[in-house]
């Protein structure tokens, strides 16, 4: 009977085209608004590296001044000082480790048709590429020996490589960055990580920024005193000079550990606690604050990647959907009320209340499906409009298969929910009364 009721549902769309169009549009607008905001929330709150998100950890130790500190306060910073980052890099406390900070360089192209321009990149350790599954188009990451030697090597992002070398493989060539020669060892391929969890702080669009143009060894960027491009937090006055800055307690470096398994978290935490205790003994760390490890999901929560305004938008969109549903209920009541005679006839011909219920509910499901198709089109439109607002939103405002199916499921579920009361009312029709009144 499902097929029969489905066909009847399709026919009933034509029965009262204006009412049907209004219902479909109401449902579609409500679903589109919800799906558009939900899509953004879904992309923002997704696990960017599911196969190892429980093995990647951000360590935080509190190197703030003792003044204004109350026991039990959480660390009030989300980056590390150079001293801590350097110690962690040398610690071998985990399988892999990388420090990260934003670096800004002047690129001096060999090609005469391109002038000198400034670009942004990252100073990282060689482990960085493996830790975050960076895809290489040409070449590979530099070696740990390059890290150790602070060698002038660079990995280019695909956009910069395309700009400078077109389709040719530039691995092995030399490039001048801020007056120094670097050897190109690799070129990354398209690398979309949403949210861009490994470098949330300091980039232009936070967790939803574009790909970086180049990567140099952390040790090299320090040796070459590469210009920082990111967030720096200092609580004390700093003496002049780069070395004084490195020796200060200013925090400006993000750090990630990768453990062999999720269960190694405890030993990493032990290392962090021992390290902090030792630094307190040395008089460097003055606060007795807790030392924190955050895995990827915890880090995204801690950094409030999905802000309260995003959540509020989603709630408001759902509120709007409920409003649309109430309207759809009213429209369905109107549509079904004129079908009382048909219900009476069908009941007289042998339909039970249950069969009438099924028929009308499947009819509302058909309305839901049509509403879903239109809602999907509207949602794509809404996402395109949202994407036009900023670069960061371009990254998140796109629909995947899950959201595509969610749209249909939501439309059908909404229609079925909206149809419950009108369908129940239709089932209560007294056939005898309807048949006589015809």
């Amino acid at each position, binding site marked *: 009977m499902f097929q029969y009721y489905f066909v009847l549902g399709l026919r009933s769309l*034509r029965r009262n085209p204006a009412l049907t169009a209004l219902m479909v549009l109401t449902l579609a607008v409500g679903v589109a608004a919800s799906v558009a905001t939900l899509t953004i929330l879904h992309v923002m709150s997704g696990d960017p590296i599911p196969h190892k998100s429980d093995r990647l950890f951000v360590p935080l130790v509190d190197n703030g001044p003792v003044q204004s500190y109350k026991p039990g306060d959480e660390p009030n910073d989300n980056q590390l000082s150079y001293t801590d980052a350097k110690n962690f890099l040398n610690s071998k406390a985990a399988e892999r480790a990388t420090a990260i900070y934003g670096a800004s360089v002047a690129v001096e192209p060999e090609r005469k048709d391109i002038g000198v321009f400034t670009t942004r990149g990252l100073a990282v350790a060689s482990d960085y590429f493996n830790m975050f599954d960076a895809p290489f188009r040409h070449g590979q990451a530099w070696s740990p020996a390059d890290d150790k030697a602070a060698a002038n090597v660079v990995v280019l992002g695909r956009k910069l490589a395309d700009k400078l070398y077109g389709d040719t493989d530039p691995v092995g060539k030399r490039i001048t960055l801020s007056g120094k020669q670097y050897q190109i060892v690799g070129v990354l391929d398209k690398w979309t990580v949403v949210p861009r969890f490994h470098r949330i702080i300091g980039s232009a669009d936070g967790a939803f920024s574009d790909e970086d143009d180049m990567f140099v060894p952390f040790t090299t960027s320090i040796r070459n005193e590469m210009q920082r491009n990111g967030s720096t937090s200092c609580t004390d006055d700093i003496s002049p000079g780069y070395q004084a800055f490195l020796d200060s307690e200013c925090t400006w470096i993000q750090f990630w550990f990768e453990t062999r398994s999720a269960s190694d978290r405890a030993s990493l935490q032990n290392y962090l606690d021992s390290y902090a205790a030792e630094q307190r003994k040395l008089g460097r760390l003055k606060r007795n604050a807790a030392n924190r490890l955050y895995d990827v999901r915890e880090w995204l929560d801690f950094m409030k990647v999905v802000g309260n305004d995003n959540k509020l938008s989603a709630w408001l969109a759902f509120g709007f959907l409920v409003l649309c549903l109430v309207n759809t209920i009213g429209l369905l009541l109107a549509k079904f009320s004129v079908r009382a005679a048909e219900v009476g006839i069908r009941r007289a*011909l042998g339909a039970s*209340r249950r069969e009438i219920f099924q028929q009308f509910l499947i009819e509302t499901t058909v309305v839901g499906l049509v509403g879903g198709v239109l809602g999907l089109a509207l949602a794509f439109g809404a996402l395109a409009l949202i994407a036009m607002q900023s670069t960061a939103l371009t990254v998140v405002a796109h629909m995947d298969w899950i959201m595509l199916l969610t749209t249909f499921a939501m439309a059908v579920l909404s229609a079925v929910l909206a149809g419950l009361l009108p369908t129940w009312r239709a089932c209560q029709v007294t056939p005898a009364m309807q048949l006589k009144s*015809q």
Partner: protein
Amino acid sequence: MLRMQNLNKVYRTHMIETHALRGFEINVKQGEFVTVTGPSGSGKTSFLNIAGLLEEFTDGEYILDGINVKGMDDNARSRLRNEKLGFIFQGFNLIPDLSLFDNVDVPLRYRGFNAAERKERIEDALAKVGLASRMKHYPAELSGGQQQRVAIARALAGSPKLLLADEPTGNLDTQMARGVMELLEEINAQGTTILMVTHDPELAVRSQRNVHIIDGQVSDLVRKAPTLFDANAHADGKTHVA
């Protein structure tokens, strides 16, 4: 075929009680053509609705084709209605946006027949009422008499044992009414029991038996003159009084 004993139907509101049927007794045999007459408000429609399992009765007993229907749930009543009964209404009650074929198909769908059997039954039923060539048409494209024929085809398609007709000629002109009545007599001659409510005394005399209802009770049961088809059975042509 249909037996009601001491059957009562009371409509209750918070203000008043209305006794539509009181101590109602009737026994309709298999193959009979019974007309039901009576003044407005006498209980004819209540009787027909209860007989058609469209309404429940307050108390008493109702046996339909050997089945006691008292206390049956909605599913069982609907199934029984679908299998045993056919309905013909004064207002035809066709579904306007379904073709004639699809209108006749409705009760067969609920019966669960397969597509081939449904098609065969629909074509037979429409052929029987002379509308086989118009099965793709819609009710609005037909005259009143033709629409009533479609309703009859729909009622017959499921091979019901009892056909309930509520003033089936009430909306038709004399010529069309005669045609419909002849069709009903033909159906009855083929063995289907017919129970027909009518205001028309001329139609009442054409049935084998007329039941007159007044104030929710059967006032008398009179065997009328044999019909054209009875005449074959009663060759002497005499009037038989019950």
